[in-house]
């Protein structure tokens, strides 16, 4: 687990180093904006913080020095002259080098490192250095906590009774500290008896809410060290009157004093990194180091001094970070393409073997099957390289919702589901804009104002649910709000005003909702600068279809709207059914096919002048002749006798009539972009086993263009409604 977090750390380092470089380059170019300096300070500070967590002492020490100089700069105590800028640039390079060594192993150029450290030191005022390297704690007793441990550790733990008097000052209550919780923490250490002292409590009339009157007397019997007991009160130190008296106190104090000496004798550089909180022995990232004996001063010092050298060994012990490799995206894509060709190649080979006049091809087929499986494995492997969880994208969306809520004066919360769903990197990148737009829309137009929500009996806070899931070979992203739903009369009116539909158009609810995606449509009465910007939902739809996906909206008045985006898992390969239509071979995406059947005459019924319906188990489904939809003419007298039952996202079913079904196989998607213009009904192309090009059909747009399907759909809805 810590390995993967360490991976993240190194990835984050890359970004932080980049930010540092960028900032320094800006400074070198004359930009002395305080925010630039601040940003660098934070970046270096973050590197230090993370490095500390993984015990990367060299890195911590260098980052600390670097950061301190920057702190001087941002506090205007140091001028950014040419000499300093050059030093900072070299230091930034050294920081990169140290990160690299920490990650990949290797040698640090100690001499160079020391030179730079010394040069940085020259810019750090003396007292500053002392202050930051102070061992720890808020002045007094905090260091004692550590020391108690150091002093008391060697002895066999013995039960001891502590009598504790605890009287909070009124200031304590302003910091969110609660006596009750402190007692609970004490109770973890041993047997605790609590007695409340309310003697100072005045009469009711004299009582002041802001005053503190109560005190407690506690008796704790524990085998834990005194430092553990004191540590419980660390946060309230100075905010209460506290006395802790143990049985064997005199001895413990002597040990503590000796340990205090040992501590200050240690070289300061190691302290910042090597002195954790009081409970050091439990530290998961450090190999167990025996508590140094207080009297063994030199040993303790030596241990710390040798820590940096031991670092590489320490890393091995932890198994080291999981190595990652940054690869240009283009190389991965080349691989994906090659795998695609491999799959095509397999199909060709299989076909040619089938064409050979050999009686027994069983052995070859077995090998061929193996070939196919390997090709699939490689393909999945390559796809996994590009797959990323949608979590970061979703997290960004939470921010979008917050911003949008603030800008509109509404209160919305975003609930996310399926954040670990993995999707192709390009898909994630290109989803960001459409999702942003939909979410802003949901806040702006979907969710009502708090007072309206209350009036409608809803919670004041609007809920927008963003979910991702894998659904039969596709990725499904859903954005669901609990707002007012689509205002259908208004949408229809606008569509008529804008000439998108004729005035007397009879539309189903679903069709009205989907008008939102029509080019140039915007329901906002005035273009708000949030979801407006002259960009409509048509842009969202284009972005989604550009990814080979579909988007659909469903809405219930008063209850909210749901946008559903269905995307292919990968942009490179898909499962398709190879069919023939009017002597041409075509591919229909498997994901859209519900079932296939061979039709007989008695299953066909006519509707109107030239519409036909297919009767399936008592239900009627409009038939859409693919050849007709694509404008193809059959030369032979072959009939379309095979039906692919497909279902659109609106739940509309349609039977695509084709001539025959040949095969079901994986095909490599070859985009037609730049080859020819958009062909209605055709999504892309592929190369089949025989080397021929076949069009990949888009059933949705074929159905949309089919008059029978549209007429039937309207009729069906009307009869449902009545």
């Amino acid at each position, binding site marked *: 687990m810590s390995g993967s977090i360490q991976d*993240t*750390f190194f990835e984050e380092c890359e970004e932080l180093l980049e930010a540092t470089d960028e900032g320094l380059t800006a400074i070198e170019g004359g930009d002395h904006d305080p925010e630039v300096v601040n940003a660098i300070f934070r970046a270096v500070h973050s590197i230090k913080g*993370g490095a500390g967590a993984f015990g990367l002492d060299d890195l911590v020490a260098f980052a600390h020095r670097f950061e301190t100089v920057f702190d001087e700069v941002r506090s205007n105590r140091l001028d950014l002259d040419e000499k300093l800028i050059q030093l900072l640039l070299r230091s930034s390079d050294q920081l990169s080098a140290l990160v690299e060594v920490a990650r990949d192993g290797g040698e640090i150029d100690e001499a160079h490192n020391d030179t730079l450290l010394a040069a940085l030191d020259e810019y750090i005022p003396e007292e500053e250095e002392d202050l930051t390297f*102070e061992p720890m704690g*808020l002045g007094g007793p905090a260091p004692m906590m550590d020391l108690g441990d150091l002093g008391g550790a060697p002895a066999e733990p013995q039960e001891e009774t502590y009598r504790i008097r605890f009287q909070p000052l009124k200031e304590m209550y302003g910091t969110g500290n609660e006596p009750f919780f402190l007692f609970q*923490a004490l109770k973890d250490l041993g047997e605790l008896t609590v007695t409340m002292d309310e003697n100072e409590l005045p009469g009711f009339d004299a009582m002041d809410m802001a005053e503190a009157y109560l005190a407690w007397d506690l008796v704790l019997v524990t085998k834990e060290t005194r430092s553990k007991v004191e*540590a419980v009160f660390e946060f309230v130190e100075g905010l209460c009157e506290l006395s802790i008296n143990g049985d064997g106190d005199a001895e413990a104090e002597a040990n503590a004093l000796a340990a205090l000496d040992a501590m200050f004798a240690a070289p300061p550089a190691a302290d910042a990194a090597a002195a*954790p909180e009081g*409970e050091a022995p*439990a530290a998961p990232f450090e190999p167990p180091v025996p508590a140094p004996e207080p009297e063994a001063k030199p040993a303790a010092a030596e241990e710390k001094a040798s820590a940096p050298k031991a670092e590489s060994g320490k890393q091995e012990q932890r198994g080291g970070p999981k190595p990652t490799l940054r690869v240009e995206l283009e190389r991965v894509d080349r691989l994906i393409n090659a795998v695609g060709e491999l799959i095509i190649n397999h199909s060709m080979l299989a076909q040619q073997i089938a064409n050979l006049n050999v009686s027994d091809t069983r052995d070859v087929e077995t090998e061929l099957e193996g070939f196919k499986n390997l090709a699939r494995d490689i393909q999945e492997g390559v796809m996994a390289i590009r797959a990323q969880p949608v979590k970061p994208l979703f997290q960004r969306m939470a921010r979008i919702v917050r911003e949008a809520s603030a800008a509109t004066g509404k209160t919305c919360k975003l609930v996310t589901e399926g954040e670990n769903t993995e999707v192709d990197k390009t898909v994630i990148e290109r989803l960001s804009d459409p999702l942003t737009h939909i979410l802003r829309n949901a806040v702006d137009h979907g969710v009502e104002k708090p007072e309206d929500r209350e009036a409608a009996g809803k919670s004041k806070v609007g809920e927008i649910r963003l979910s991702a899931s894998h659904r039969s070979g596709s990725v499904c992203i859903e954005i669901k709000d609990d707002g007012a739903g689509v205002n259908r009369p208004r949408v229809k009116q606008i569509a008529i005003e804008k000439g998108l539909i004729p005035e007397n158009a009879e539309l189903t609810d679903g069709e009205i909702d989907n008008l939102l995606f029509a080019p140039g449509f915007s329901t906002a009465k005035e273009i708000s600068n949030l979801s407006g910007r002259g960009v409509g939902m048509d842009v969202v739809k284009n972005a989604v279809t550009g990814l080979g996906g579909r988007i659909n909206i469903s809405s219930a008045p008063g209850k909210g709207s749901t946008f559903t985006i269905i995307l292919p898992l990968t942009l490179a390969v898909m499962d398709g059914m190879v069919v023939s239509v009017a002597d041409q071979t075509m591919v229909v995406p498997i994901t859209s096919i519900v079932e296939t059947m061979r039709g007989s005459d008695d299953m066909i019924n006519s509707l109107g002048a030239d519409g036909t319906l297919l009767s399936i188990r008592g239900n009627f489904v409009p038939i859409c002749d693919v050849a007709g939809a694509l404008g193809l003419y059959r030369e032979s007298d072959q009939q379309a006798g095979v039906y692919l039952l497909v279902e659109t996202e609106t739940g509309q079913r349609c039977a695509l009539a084709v001539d025959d079904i040949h095969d079901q196989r994986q095909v490599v998607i070859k985009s037609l972009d730049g080859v020819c213009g958009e062909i209605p009904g055709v999504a892309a192309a592929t190369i089949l086993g025989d080397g021929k090009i076949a069009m990949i059909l888009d059933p949705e747009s074929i159905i949309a263009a089919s008059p029978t399907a549209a007429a039937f759909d309207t009729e069906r809805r009307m009869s449902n409604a009545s």
Partner: protein
Amino acid sequence: MKTKVLAIDDSRTIRNLLAATLEEAGFEYHCAVDGREGVDMYPDVDPDVVITDINMPNLDGFGVIEELRGTGINSKVPILVLTTESAPELKARARGAGATGWITKPFDDASLIFALKRVTGAAA
């Protein structure tokens, strides 16, 4: 009911470390990437305890404490600050603003849980 933690830190590494430790220990973990986001998220998350970094863009840790203590929504929520060095003046300033306690980076699981125990009474 799980104890809800809202962690505010601009470092992904620290957020991941906190998430790993806290989720394993049974806390409900929420995080924000800077002070502004943390304060904005606060009402939604309604945490039992806030852990915040000091050095952050947009709104720093002191700002977070001041805003949360100033809201009056829950001016008593425990707030722990994350500090790299245990620089006394940082702690004093944080406490002056109303911080409940602090966690020194690098932290280990035990000290993190112990700090939470002392301000929420919960080990999870």
